[in-house]
């Protein structure tokens, strides 16, 4: 059982979720409340990683982060290590790749916040940033949880990008998805099965807890 890979995946997913929980609300807030026409285009660009196969993203990243690119070279010279095939490289890829999974649910949630509450906030002298933080975000709790779950999950499950820019290095870039893939190819169905099971049970636990906690504000069906 490849515990290293499990740990690595959790670390990667955790870091990605953390970063996106900071970045996505700002972005989503700006997108939701800006009245400029071209925000639609920005919205589409943000959503792009969604539609792009991970291999496309992986390809562009490989080109951008690889030692043949200026960015990759600069990074390699500064840190002494290349970006591609490192944890940092994976993290960058994951953040980009999961961005829409964080932004989309937030956008949907922001859109259903009662407009009058936003108005009440502005009329009490609060600008959009303050309103976002104090009214819109707290009232979008379900959206925030969905964003976090989707981001975390999507990163855990990420395979294509990692295969392309990760390089399958144990402890550094061999995530659990890759590890299971390898086990299956090595006909080691037992290990594949066991790793899958561990992941399954763990995920189930995390999800049950998340949903149970999140259930509080859920509008149950009127006493029926």
């Amino acid at each position, binding site marked *: 059982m490849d515990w290293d890979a499990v740990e690595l995946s959790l670390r990667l997913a955790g870091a990605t979720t953390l970063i996106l929980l900071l970045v996505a609300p700002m972005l989503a807030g700006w997108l939701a409340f800006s009245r400029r026409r071209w925000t639609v285009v920005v919205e589409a660009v943000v959503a792009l990683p969604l539609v792009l196969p991970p291999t496309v993203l992986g390809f562009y990243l490989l080109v951008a982060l690889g030692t043949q690119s200026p960015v990759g070279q600069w990074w390699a010279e500064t840190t002494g290590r290349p970006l591609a095939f490192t944890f940092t490289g994976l993290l960058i890829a994951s953040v980009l790749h999961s961005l829409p999974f964080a932004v989309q649910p937030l956008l949907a949630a922001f859109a259903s916040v009662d407009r009058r509450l936003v108005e009440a906030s502005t009329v009490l002298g609060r600008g959009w940033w303050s309103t976002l933080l104090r009214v819109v975000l707290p009232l979008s709790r379900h959206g925030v949880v969905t964003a976090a779950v989707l981001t975390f999950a999507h990163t855990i499950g990420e395979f294509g990008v990692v295969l392309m820019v990760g*390089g399958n290095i144990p402890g550094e870039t061999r995530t659990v998805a890759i590890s299971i893939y*390898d086990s299956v190819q090595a*006909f080691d169905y037992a290990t594949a099965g066991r790793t899958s099971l561990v992941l399954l049970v763990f995920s189930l636990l995390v999800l049950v807890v998340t949903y149970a906690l999140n259930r509080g504000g859920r509008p149950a069906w009127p006493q029926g």
Partner: protein
Amino acid sequence: GADATAEPATQIHIAAASDLQFALDEVIRVAEQDRADDLSVSVTYGSSGTFVQQIANGAPVDLYLSADQDYAEQLIEDGHADEDSLFRYAVGRMVVWAPEDSPADPDQGLAGLTAESVDTVALANPEHAPYGAAAVAALEDAGVYEDVSDKLVRGENIAQAAEFVRSGNADVGVLALSLARAPEMRDEGSYAEVPLESFPRLNQAGVVLAEAPAEAEELASYLQSSDGQAILADYGFYPPEWDGD
């Protein structure tokens, strides 16, 4: 094993063609036993072409073991390894393999793949896996490529192709002999060898990459030593100098 105060073990990372999946594991196990010092070897198996592409983009690989000499040479051309670090370690052999209950009869060789009862034929992706390219060449040589092209299922590398067949999802596969001889497949089906001369010879070669630690070189030597070669022979590899009997 070393005690806690010892220097951290040297890390060697090997990228190896997936036909080595089982053979190389054994080689390394034995090699590690023979050594006094601590050596930590990690291996990634995959298609030979993929590795070249990754190494070209900076993947931290110390020893690259290809299923085909051309890929190894490409790394030297691109300046990722010294010319004299290139070495041959085996000649790859190919088989038609089918599981026990398959409708296909491997004994008929490639020609048998045209049978109507055969729905799917697994092979490695010819675009970046040498065994895939070799399989296509052999099929063409046997004059059946046109007939079977609709049945082809491509694994990302030769190990995945093998996995397709072994799991029963594909009826038959054109695989590496080394995989067919692996304990995991030996008792699951039967195979017939594809004549060595019906496809461009699979000269399996490796390179030690520039800036690799000395231990990588040692491992490469071990692979070419008689001990190493014996293990490879067990898995059906011909020695690199093999000249047709």
